[in-house]
């Protein structure tokens, strides 16, 4: 445990110092993995499957906000599906457009969930996805998680569709569309998984926001177990197939993923080195601000903010700080308050 804590500490310091490099590298890696996963599942379009194109695109995404990666992923998926069948791409495009219109108007910052969910599916640990989404994005992640599930099942159906595509004639536009929609949007398995995911995300989010010790850990474990129960119940009730071993492994993976995330990402203050520029009448300033890591100090500060009341102001005695002078009268309430604000509050604000 001590070694883990030391490792965490080292990570924190490393990130504080080299955040410029690390965050870009992580973004690049995340984008590349997503794009490769998409390529692995589809691969019907030569350009969108070209590894150099993908690397180049990931490099661009590394320097742009996270939403761009999600958007690029969606475009790649559409291109791949277009290579397979125009109808397929059309259905996917309309569904994605609906999501863009009604959801991303509200919250563009959770778009990463859209690619995260299919990646968890492909890594064979889909059950970890809602736990992670509940812990990070919270309730805002529900809608992209549902659409992410849809994206996975849509890509999953590709190979099956490719096999049966030959049975359709040249002008069979409508039957093709109906066939695709039956197996993607109206896929029972997908709908069941979406509902289970939504329930799990809400549960994890609610437990996480309780103000008790280890609420994150409790949320992770409870969420994963309840999710497993829901999966079994729903699949048995609708007589769908599911793999018991996979479910057990998936649940354990979900708990582990949640705990690892908690330990390395959320219980750590990844403050970053800040580089800012500004000027006043006399100088240009190029400031590099490196965060200090001092737990004890932070805790004291938090306590001060919460416990300060008017009583403290009224009992503050400037004479203790500046010393007595002969014949000085006892300061009244207003004097004490003013002195307190001057000496304590103003100083803290600056720090």
């Amino acid at each position, binding site marked *: 445990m001590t070694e883990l804590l030391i490792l965490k500490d080292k990570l924190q310091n490393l990130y504080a110092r080299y955040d410029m490099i690390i965050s870009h590298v992580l973004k690049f890696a995340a984008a590349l993995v997503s794009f490769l996963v998409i390529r692995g599942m589809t691969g019907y379009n030569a350009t969108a499957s070209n590894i150099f194109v993908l690397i180049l695109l990931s490099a661009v995404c590394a320097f742009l906000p996270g939403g761009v990666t999600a958007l690029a992923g969606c475009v790649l998926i559409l291109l791949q599906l277009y290579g397979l069948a125009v109808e397929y791409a059309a*259905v996917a495009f*309309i*569904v994605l*457009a*609906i999501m863009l*219109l*009604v959801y991303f*108007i*509200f919250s563009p910052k959770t778009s990463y969930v859209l690619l995260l969910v299919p990646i968890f599916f492909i890594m064979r640990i889909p059950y970890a996805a809602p736990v992670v989404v509940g812990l990070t994005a919270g309730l805002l992640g529900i809608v992209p998680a549902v659409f992410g599930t849809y994206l996975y099942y849509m890509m999953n159906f590709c190979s099956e569709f490719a096999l049966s595509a030959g049975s359709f004639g040249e002008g069979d536009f*409508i039957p093709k*569309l*109906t066939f695709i*929609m039956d197996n993607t*949007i109206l896929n029972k398995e997908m709908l069941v998984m979406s509902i289970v995911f939504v329930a799990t995300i809400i549960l994890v989010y609610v437990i996480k926001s309780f103000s008790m010790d280890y609420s994150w850990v409790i949320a992770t474990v409870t969420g994963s177990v309840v999710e497993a129960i829901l999966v079994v119940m729903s699949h048995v009730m609708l007589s769908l197939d599911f793999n018991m071993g996979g479910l057990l492994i998936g649940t354990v993976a979900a708990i582990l993923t949640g705990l690892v995330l908690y330990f390395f990402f959320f219980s750590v203050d990844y403050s970053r080195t*800040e580089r*800012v*520029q*500004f000027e*006043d*009448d006399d*100088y240009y*300033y190029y*400031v590099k*601000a490196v965060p200090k890591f001092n737990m004890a100090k932070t805790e004291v500060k938090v306590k001060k903010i919460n416990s300060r009341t008017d009583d403290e102001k009224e009992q503050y005695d400037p004479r203790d700080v500046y010393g007595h002078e002969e014949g000085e009268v006892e300061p009244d309430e207003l004097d004490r308050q003013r002195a307190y604000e001057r000496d304590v509050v103003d100083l803290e*604000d*600056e*720090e």
Partner: protein
Amino acid sequence: MVNKRKVRLMARTAMYEKHEGHDELKNAVYYRGDYVGMHMLFAGIGITLGYLLCLFLVFVYRFEFIVNNLTDINYRKLGSTLIIIYVLLLIVFQVIAYFVYSIRYNDYQSGLKFYINRLKKIDKLGREEKEEE
């Protein structure tokens, strides 16, 4: 001479401008009503287009049925059902948009308060410096 207090305050202010302030300052120029109203309008347009796309998907999915029963469909009933669903959806989304953007606007305002306070302090320090010279 470089004033340490001032540099510290200015650095904090610059960090705010770079991160949280980036969005907040852009939106804080609106009045509350304008900000919330503008986003409710966008949400309304979004839901309208989304609803039309949904209808299109349903239309394509049931195309065969629709073509076969062109004459038997009760268009008045169908039309009124679709409009009622649309109005309900619109109301729900407008209410959600109202709450989401009101809360966001309040958050922006509280961030902005700190920012303006800091600016005032910097200004005060700057003036004191000038007087000393």
